[in-house]
Protein backbone atom coordinates (compact mmCIF):
# COMPACT_ATOMS: atom_id res chain seq x y z
CA UNK A 1 0.00 0.00 0.00
CA UNK A 2 2.94 2.25 0.75
CA UNK A 3 4.02 2.15 -2.91
CA UNK A 4 0.48 3.15 -3.96
CA UNK A 5 0.70 6.34 -1.89
CA UNK A 6 4.29 6.97 -3.04
CA UNK A 7 3.28 6.70 -6.72
CA UNK A 8 0.19 8.86 -6.20
CA UNK A 9 2.08 11.65 -4.41
CA UNK A 10 4.89 11.51 -6.98
CA UNK A 11 2.46 11.91 -9.88
CA UNK A 12 0.58 14.74 -8.15
CA UNK A 13 3.85 16.48 -7.31
CA UNK A 14 5.06 16.26 -10.93
CA UNK A 15 1.72 17.58 -12.24
CA UNK A 16 1.58 20.48 -9.78
CA UNK A 17 5.12 21.51 -10.69
CA UNK A 18 4.18 21.49 -14.38
CA UNK A 19 0.59 22.79 -14.17
CA UNK A 20 0.05 23.29 -17.89
CA UNK A 21 -0.10 19.49 -18.28
CA UNK A 22 -3.44 19.28 -16.43
CA UNK A 23 -4.72 22.85 -16.83
CA UNK A 24 -4.91 22.63 -20.64
CA UNK A 25 -7.75 20.05 -20.75
CA UNK A 26 -9.63 21.98 -18.03
CA UNK A 27 -9.29 25.24 -19.92
CA UNK A 28 -10.50 23.48 -23.05
CA UNK A 29 -13.55 22.24 -21.10
CA UNK A 30 -14.47 25.72 -19.81
CA UNK A 31 -13.79 27.54 -23.08
CA UNK A 32 -15.59 25.03 -25.31
CA UNK A 33 -18.72 24.98 -23.11
CA UNK A 34 -18.84 28.76 -22.86
CA UNK A 35 -18.61 29.14 -26.64
CA UNK A 36 -21.85 27.26 -27.30
CA UNK A 37 -24.21 30.07 -26.18
CA UNK A 38 -22.41 32.40 -28.59
CA UNK A 39 -22.74 30.00 -31.50
CA UNK A 40 -26.23 28.57 -30.94
CA UNK A 41 -28.50 30.97 -29.09
CA UNK A 42 -28.39 32.88 -25.83
CA UNK A 43 -31.99 31.86 -25.18
CA UNK A 44 -32.47 30.06 -21.84
CA UNK A 45 -34.91 27.42 -23.08
CA UNK A 46 -32.75 26.26 -26.02
CA UNK A 47 -29.55 26.22 -23.97
CA UNK A 48 -31.00 24.34 -21.02
CA UNK A 49 -32.30 21.67 -23.43
CA UNK A 50 -28.85 21.24 -25.00
CA UNK A 51 -26.83 21.67 -21.79
CA UNK A 52 -26.54 17.97 -20.75
CA UNK A 53 -25.21 16.99 -24.17
CA UNK A 54 -22.88 19.98 -24.48
CA UNK A 55 -21.33 19.52 -21.05
CA UNK A 56 -20.96 15.76 -21.37
CA UNK A 57 -19.48 15.73 -24.87
CA UNK A 58 -17.01 18.47 -23.92
CA UNK A 59 -16.07 16.67 -20.71
CA UNK A 60 -15.36 13.50 -22.68
CA UNK A 61 -13.17 15.35 -25.18
CA UNK A 62 -11.31 17.11 -22.37
CA UNK A 63 -10.53 13.76 -20.73
CA UNK A 64 -9.45 12.34 -24.08
CA UNK A 65 -7.13 15.31 -24.54
CA UNK A 66 -5.46 14.60 -21.21
CA UNK A 67 -5.01 10.84 -21.72
CA UNK A 68 -2.03 11.11 -24.05
CA UNK A 69 0.12 12.35 -21.20
CA UNK A 70 -0.89 9.57 -18.80
CA UNK A 71 1.97 7.19 -19.65
CA UNK A 72 3.97 8.91 -22.40
CA UNK A 73 6.01 11.03 -20.04
CA UNK A 74 7.07 8.10 -17.85
CA UNK A 75 7.69 5.98 -20.93
CA UNK A 76 10.09 8.55 -22.36
CA UNK A 77 12.16 8.90 -19.21
CA UNK A 78 12.31 5.20 -18.37
CA UNK A 79 10.34 5.26 -15.10
CA UNK A 80 7.64 3.09 -16.67
CA UNK A 81 10.30 0.46 -17.40
CA UNK A 82 11.29 0.46 -13.73
CA UNK A 83 7.60 0.14 -12.73
CA UNK A 84 7.13 -2.87 -15.01
CA UNK A 85 10.17 -4.74 -13.63
CA UNK A 86 9.40 -3.79 -10.04
CA UNK A 87 8.25 -6.62 -7.79
CA UNK A 88 5.25 -4.52 -6.72
CA UNK A 89 2.01 -5.46 -8.49
CA UNK A 90 1.88 -3.37 -11.68
CA UNK A 91 -1.96 -2.98 -11.55
CA UNK A 92 -1.59 -1.32 -8.14
CA UNK A 93 0.98 1.15 -9.48
CA UNK A 94 -1.24 1.89 -12.48
CA UNK A 95 -4.28 2.37 -10.24
CA UNK A 96 -2.32 5.05 -8.40
CA UNK A 97 -1.49 6.77 -11.69
CA UNK A 98 -5.12 6.54 -12.81
CA UNK A 99 -6.31 7.98 -9.48
CA UNK A 100 -3.93 10.91 -9.84
CA UNK A 101 -5.22 11.44 -13.39
CA UNK A 102 -8.80 11.55 -12.07
CA UNK A 103 -7.88 13.91 -9.22
CA UNK A 104 -6.31 16.30 -11.75
CA UNK A 105 -8.87 16.01 -14.56
CA UNK A 106 -12.15 14.37 -13.51
CA UNK A 107 -12.53 15.97 -10.10
CA UNK A 108 -11.91 19.56 -11.31
CA UNK A 109 -14.50 18.95 -14.06
CA UNK A 110 -17.03 17.82 -11.42
CA UNK A 111 -16.27 20.93 -9.37
CA UNK A 112 -16.50 23.27 -12.38
CA UNK A 113 -19.75 21.77 -13.68
CA UNK A 114 -22.22 23.75 -11.47
CA UNK A 115 -20.76 26.97 -12.80
CA UNK A 116 -21.04 25.87 -16.42
CA UNK A 117 -24.46 24.29 -15.79
CA UNK A 118 -25.70 27.63 -14.43
CA UNK A 119 -24.23 29.42 -17.44
CA UNK A 120 -26.33 27.16 -19.68
CA UNK A 121 -29.48 27.83 -17.59
CA UNK A 122 -29.77 24.39 -16.00
CA UNK A 123 -32.07 24.42 -12.95
CA UNK A 124 -30.71 23.60 -9.53
CA UNK A 125 -31.90 19.97 -9.43
CA UNK A 126 -30.50 19.20 -12.87
CA UNK A 127 -27.15 20.68 -11.81
CA UNK A 128 -27.20 18.28 -8.85
CA UNK A 129 -27.85 15.34 -11.19
CA UNK A 130 -25.18 16.57 -13.61
CA UNK A 131 -22.63 16.62 -10.78
CA UNK A 132 -23.72 13.17 -9.64
CA UNK A 133 -23.36 11.68 -13.13
CA UNK A 134 -19.96 13.34 -13.54
CA UNK A 135 -18.84 12.06 -10.14
CA UNK A 136 -19.97 8.53 -11.03
CA UNK A 137 -18.66 8.45 -14.58
CA UNK A 138 -15.46 10.53 -14.77
CA UNK A 139 -13.51 7.83 -12.84
CA UNK A 140 -14.68 5.34 -15.49
CA UNK A 141 -13.41 7.70 -18.20
CA UNK A 142 -9.94 7.71 -16.58
CA UNK A 143 -9.99 3.93 -16.02
CA UNK A 144 -11.10 3.01 -19.54
CA UNK A 145 -8.81 5.68 -20.99
CA UNK A 146 -5.84 4.08 -19.25
CA UNK A 147 -6.36 0.91 -21.28
CA UNK A 148 -6.12 2.89 -24.53
CA UNK A 149 -3.19 4.95 -23.27
CA UNK A 150 -1.23 1.82 -22.31
CA UNK A 151 -1.88 0.24 -25.70
CA UNK A 152 -0.50 3.20 -27.63
CA UNK A 153 2.45 3.97 -25.38
CA UNK A 154 5.59 4.03 -27.51
CA UNK A 155 3.75 4.84 -30.73
CA UNK A 156 4.57 8.31 -32.01
CA UNK A 157 1.76 10.73 -33.02
CA UNK A 158 -0.88 8.36 -31.75
CA UNK A 159 -3.53 10.92 -30.73
CA UNK A 160 -5.94 9.86 -33.49
CA UNK A 161 -5.47 6.18 -32.73
CA UNK A 162 -6.30 6.79 -29.07
CA UNK A 163 -9.58 8.50 -30.00
CA UNK A 164 -10.51 5.64 -32.30
CA UNK A 165 -9.77 3.07 -29.60
CA UNK A 166 -11.41 4.83 -26.69
CA UNK A 167 -14.40 6.83 -27.98
CA UNK A 168 -16.54 3.76 -28.81
CA UNK A 169 -16.03 2.57 -25.22
CA UNK A 170 -17.07 5.99 -23.92
CA UNK A 171 -20.35 6.04 -25.87
CA UNK A 172 -22.48 4.07 -23.33
CA UNK A 173 -21.32 6.43 -20.58
CA UNK A 174 -22.23 9.44 -22.73
CA UNK A 175 -25.69 8.06 -23.49
CA UNK A 176 -26.61 7.15 -19.92
CA UNK A 177 -25.10 10.24 -18.30
CA UNK A 178 -26.60 12.85 -20.61
CA UNK A 179 -29.99 11.14 -20.68
CA UNK A 180 -30.00 11.12 -16.85
CA UNK A 181 -29.59 14.90 -16.80
CA UNK A 182 -32.19 15.40 -19.56
CA UNK A 183 -34.72 13.21 -17.75
CA UNK A 184 -34.09 15.01 -14.47
CA UNK A 185 -35.05 18.25 -16.23
CA UNK A 186 -38.51 16.78 -16.87
CA UNK A 187 -38.78 15.39 -13.35
CA UNK A 188 -38.51 11.74 -14.48
CA UNK A 189 -36.79 8.96 -12.58
CA UNK A 190 -33.06 8.59 -13.27
CA UNK A 191 -32.24 5.56 -11.16
CA UNK A 192 -31.79 3.23 -14.16
CA UNK A 193 -29.12 5.48 -15.67
CA UNK A 194 -27.34 5.87 -12.34
CA UNK A 195 -27.29 2.10 -11.82
CA UNK A 196 -25.78 1.65 -15.27
CA UNK A 197 -23.13 4.30 -14.64
CA UNK A 198 -22.31 2.71 -11.28
CA UNK A 199 -22.01 -0.75 -12.82
CA UNK A 200 -19.71 0.59 -15.57
CA UNK A 201 -17.58 2.19 -12.85
CA UNK A 202 -17.34 -1.05 -10.86
CA UNK A 203 -16.56 -3.10 -13.97
CA UNK A 204 -13.85 -0.72 -15.15
CA UNK A 205 -12.40 -0.46 -11.63
CA UNK A 206 -12.10 -4.24 -11.47
CA UNK A 207 -10.79 -4.78 -14.99
CA UNK A 208 -8.92 -1.72 -16.19
CA UNK A 209 -5.78 -1.86 -13.97
CA UNK A 210 -5.19 -5.49 -14.95
CA UNK A 211 -5.86 -5.00 -18.66
CA UNK A 212 -3.70 -1.85 -18.71
CA UNK A 213 -0.87 -3.72 -16.97
CA UNK A 214 -1.03 -6.47 -19.57
CA UNK A 215 -1.11 -3.95 -22.42
CA UNK A 216 1.84 -2.04 -20.96
CA UNK A 217 3.97 -5.18 -20.61
CA UNK A 218 3.25 -5.99 -24.26
CA UNK A 219 3.98 -2.42 -25.40
CA UNK A 220 7.32 -2.37 -23.57
CA UNK A 221 8.53 -5.75 -24.80
Amino acid at each position, binding site marked *: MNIFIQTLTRDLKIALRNPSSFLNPLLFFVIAVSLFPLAISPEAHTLSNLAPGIIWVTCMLAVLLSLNALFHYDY*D*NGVLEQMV*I*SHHPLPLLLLAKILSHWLLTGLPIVLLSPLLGAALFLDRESIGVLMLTLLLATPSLSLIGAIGASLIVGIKNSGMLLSLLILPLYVPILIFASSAVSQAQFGLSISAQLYFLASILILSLMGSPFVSALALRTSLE
Partner: protein
Amino acid sequence: MSELNVNKISCQKGYNNLFSELSFSLTSGDILKISGANGSGKTSLLKILAGLSSAECGSVSFNQNQAGSSEYQKDIFYLGHLPALSSELRCQENLSFLSHLQSDNEPDITKNTLIDMGLKGFENEYTANLSAGQKRRVVLASLLINRAPIWLLDEPFTALDNNGIGILEKQITKHSSDGGICILTTHQDCSLSNMRTLSL
Protein backbone atom coordinates in the same frame (compact mmCIF):
# COMPACT_ATOMS: atom_id res chain seq x y z
CA MET B 1 24.96 -20.34 -2.47
CA SER B 2 22.80 -18.26 -4.80
CA GLU B 3 22.81 -19.19 -8.45
CA LEU B 4 21.50 -17.40 -11.53
CA ASN B 5 20.67 -19.93 -14.21
CA VAL B 6 20.18 -19.04 -17.85
CA ASN B 7 19.02 -22.09 -19.73
CA LYS B 8 18.98 -22.28 -23.54
CA ILE B 9 17.39 -18.91 -24.21
CA SER B 10 16.89 -17.58 -27.74
CA CYS B 11 16.02 -14.12 -28.93
CA GLN B 12 14.77 -12.93 -32.28
CA LYS B 13 14.13 -9.34 -33.40
CA GLY B 14 12.17 -9.13 -36.62
CA TYR B 15 13.90 -11.55 -39.00
CA ASN B 16 17.19 -11.32 -37.09
CA ASN B 17 18.20 -14.17 -34.89
CA LEU B 18 20.24 -12.41 -32.18
CA PHE B 19 21.27 -15.46 -30.18
CA SER B 20 19.96 -18.98 -29.78
CA GLU B 21 20.26 -21.64 -27.09
CA LEU B 22 22.39 -19.38 -24.90
CA SER B 23 23.16 -20.93 -21.52
CA PHE B 24 25.31 -19.84 -18.60
CA SER B 25 25.13 -19.77 -14.86
CA LEU B 26 26.56 -17.35 -12.35
CA THR B 27 27.08 -17.75 -8.65
CA SER B 28 27.61 -15.31 -5.78
CA GLY B 29 30.50 -12.95 -6.40
CA ASP B 30 30.59 -13.33 -10.19
CA ILE B 31 30.92 -10.36 -12.53
CA LEU B 32 30.00 -10.95 -16.16
CA LYS B 33 30.74 -8.54 -18.98
CA ILE B 34 28.64 -9.04 -22.09
CA SER B 35 30.54 -7.89 -25.13
CA GLY B 36 29.60 -7.75 -28.76
CA ALA B 37 29.18 -5.43 -31.71
CA ASN B 38 26.30 -2.93 -31.95
CA GLY B 39 23.07 -4.79 -32.59
CA SER B 40 24.39 -8.13 -31.36
CA GLY B 41 21.70 -8.41 -28.68
CA LYS B 42 23.40 -7.22 -25.49
CA THR B 43 20.53 -5.00 -24.41
CA SER B 44 17.97 -7.62 -25.46
CA LEU B 45 19.73 -10.18 -23.28
CA LEU B 46 19.74 -7.82 -20.29
CA LYS B 47 16.06 -7.05 -20.84
CA ILE B 48 15.27 -10.76 -20.79
CA LEU B 49 17.29 -11.18 -17.58
CA ALA B 50 15.47 -8.17 -16.09
CA GLY B 51 12.09 -9.74 -16.80
CA LEU B 52 11.20 -6.83 -19.09
CA SER B 53 10.81 -9.03 -22.15
CA SER B 54 10.51 -12.76 -22.54
CA ALA B 55 12.81 -15.07 -24.50
CA GLU B 56 11.53 -16.97 -27.53
CA CYS B 57 12.34 -20.15 -25.65
CA GLY B 58 14.37 -21.24 -22.64
CA SER B 59 14.23 -20.10 -19.03
CA VAL B 60 15.92 -17.76 -16.59
CA SER B 61 15.84 -18.42 -12.86
CA PHE B 62 17.53 -17.27 -9.69
CA ASN B 63 17.39 -19.64 -6.71
CA GLN B 64 14.59 -21.57 -8.45
CA ASN B 65 12.51 -18.39 -8.92
CA GLN B 66 11.59 -17.83 -12.58
CA ALA B 67 12.16 -14.44 -14.22
CA GLY B 68 8.97 -12.41 -14.05
CA SER B 69 7.89 -13.81 -10.68
CA SER B 70 7.62 -11.33 -7.84
CA GLU B 71 10.40 -13.12 -5.88
CA TYR B 72 12.78 -12.94 -8.85
CA GLN B 73 11.97 -9.29 -9.59
CA LYS B 74 12.70 -8.43 -5.96
CA ASP B 75 16.25 -9.74 -6.43
CA ILE B 76 17.23 -7.65 -9.44
CA PHE B 77 18.34 -4.11 -10.02
CA TYR B 78 18.19 -3.07 -13.67
CA LEU B 79 19.67 0.07 -15.15
CA GLY B 80 18.73 0.61 -18.78
CA HIS B 81 19.66 3.24 -21.35
CA LEU B 82 16.99 5.64 -20.12
CA PRO B 83 17.75 7.74 -17.04
CA ALA B 84 14.57 6.74 -15.09
CA LEU B 85 14.41 10.25 -13.61
CA SER B 86 11.60 12.79 -13.74
CA SER B 87 12.83 16.28 -14.53
CA GLU B 88 10.20 17.90 -12.27
CA LEU B 89 11.54 16.09 -9.20
CA ARG B 90 14.61 16.92 -7.15
CA CYS B 91 17.52 14.43 -7.02
CA GLN B 92 16.58 13.29 -3.52
CA GLU B 93 12.90 12.79 -4.50
CA ASN B 94 13.83 10.83 -7.62
CA LEU B 95 16.17 8.62 -5.67
CA SER B 96 13.58 8.01 -2.97
CA PHE B 97 10.87 6.98 -5.48
CA LEU B 98 13.23 4.68 -7.39
CA SER B 99 14.25 3.00 -4.15
CA HIS B 100 10.63 2.55 -3.10
CA LEU B 101 9.95 0.86 -6.44
CA GLN B 102 12.86 -1.49 -5.92
CA SER B 103 12.38 -2.42 -2.31
CA ASP B 104 9.66 -3.06 0.26
CA ASN B 105 11.47 -1.40 3.10
CA GLU B 106 11.77 2.29 3.73
CA PRO B 107 14.95 3.17 1.78
CA ASP B 108 17.93 4.09 3.84
CA ILE B 109 18.71 7.34 2.02
CA THR B 110 20.96 9.72 3.85
CA LYS B 111 22.35 13.03 2.73
CA ASN B 112 25.60 11.15 2.15
CA THR B 113 24.16 8.82 -0.48
CA LEU B 114 24.26 11.50 -3.15
CA ILE B 115 27.45 13.06 -1.74
CA ASP B 116 29.19 9.66 -2.01
CA MET B 117 28.22 9.64 -5.66
CA GLY B 118 29.94 13.00 -6.15
CA LEU B 119 26.76 15.10 -6.16
CA LYS B 120 27.53 17.37 -3.22
CA GLY B 121 25.39 20.52 -3.36
CA PHE B 122 22.97 19.02 -5.90
CA GLU B 123 20.75 17.06 -3.47
CA ASN B 124 17.85 19.50 -3.84
CA GLU B 125 18.45 20.41 -7.46
CA TYR B 126 15.81 19.54 -10.05
CA THR B 127 17.16 16.79 -12.31
CA ALA B 128 16.21 18.91 -15.35
CA ASN B 129 19.15 21.15 -14.44
CA LEU B 130 21.72 18.33 -14.30
CA SER B 131 24.11 17.19 -17.01
CA ALA B 132 23.84 13.71 -18.55
CA GLY B 133 26.68 12.43 -16.38
CA GLN B 134 25.18 13.87 -13.21
CA LYS B 135 21.81 12.27 -14.02
CA ARG B 136 23.61 8.96 -14.44
CA ARG B 137 25.18 9.44 -11.01
CA VAL B 138 21.74 10.01 -9.40
CA VAL B 139 20.48 6.68 -10.75
CA LEU B 140 23.72 4.93 -9.80
CA ALA B 141 23.32 6.32 -6.28
CA SER B 142 20.44 3.88 -5.86
CA LEU B 143 23.06 1.11 -6.17
CA LEU B 144 24.49 2.32 -2.86
CA ILE B 145 21.27 1.69 -0.98
CA ASN B 146 20.01 -1.26 -2.98
CA ARG B 147 20.03 -4.70 -1.43
CA ALA B 148 19.25 -6.64 -4.63
CA PRO B 149 21.75 -9.47 -5.21
CA ILE B 150 21.72 -9.20 -9.03
CA TRP B 151 22.76 -6.00 -10.75
CA LEU B 152 22.02 -5.70 -14.47
CA LEU B 153 23.76 -2.62 -15.82
CA ASP B 154 23.35 -1.62 -19.45
CA GLU B 155 26.25 0.64 -20.49
CA PRO B 156 26.67 1.99 -16.95
CA PHE B 157 29.83 3.97 -17.78
CA THR B 158 28.18 6.07 -20.50
CA ALA B 159 28.46 9.82 -19.82
CA LEU B 160 30.48 9.28 -16.63
CA ASP B 161 33.84 11.00 -16.12
CA ASN B 162 36.93 9.16 -14.86
CA ASN B 163 36.06 9.89 -11.26
CA GLY B 164 32.50 8.55 -11.77
CA ILE B 165 33.83 5.41 -13.47
CA GLY B 166 36.18 4.89 -10.51
CA ILE B 167 33.32 5.19 -7.98
CA LEU B 168 31.17 2.76 -9.97
CA GLU B 169 33.95 0.19 -10.37
CA LYS B 170 34.55 0.34 -6.63
CA GLN B 171 30.84 -0.26 -5.97
CA ILE B 172 30.74 -3.23 -8.35
CA THR B 173 33.82 -4.78 -6.70
CA LYS B 174 32.26 -4.26 -3.26
CA HIS B 175 28.97 -5.79 -4.42
CA SER B 176 30.82 -8.80 -5.78
CA SER B 177 32.85 -9.30 -2.60
CA ASP B 178 29.60 -9.06 -0.59
CA GLY B 179 28.33 -12.06 -2.58
CA GLY B 180 26.35 -10.22 -5.25
CA ILE B 181 26.20 -10.91 -8.99
CA CYS B 182 26.80 -8.19 -11.55
CA ILE B 183 26.14 -8.41 -15.28
CA LEU B 184 27.10 -5.43 -17.39
CA THR B 185 27.49 -4.42 -20.98
CA THR B 186 30.09 -1.88 -21.95
CA HIS B 187 32.30 -0.92 -24.85
CA GLN B 188 34.89 0.58 -22.52
CA ASP B 189 37.81 -1.22 -20.94
CA CYS B 190 37.17 -1.70 -17.28
CA SER B 191 39.62 -2.87 -14.69
CA LEU B 192 37.42 -5.14 -12.62
CA SER B 193 39.10 -8.15 -11.14
CA ASN B 194 37.54 -11.64 -11.48
CA MET B 195 35.42 -10.48 -14.42
CA ARG B 196 34.31 -13.04 -17.00
CA THR B 197 33.37 -12.06 -20.53
CA LEU B 198 30.55 -13.40 -22.66
CA SER B 199 30.75 -12.59 -26.36
CA LEU B 200 27.55 -12.42 -28.36
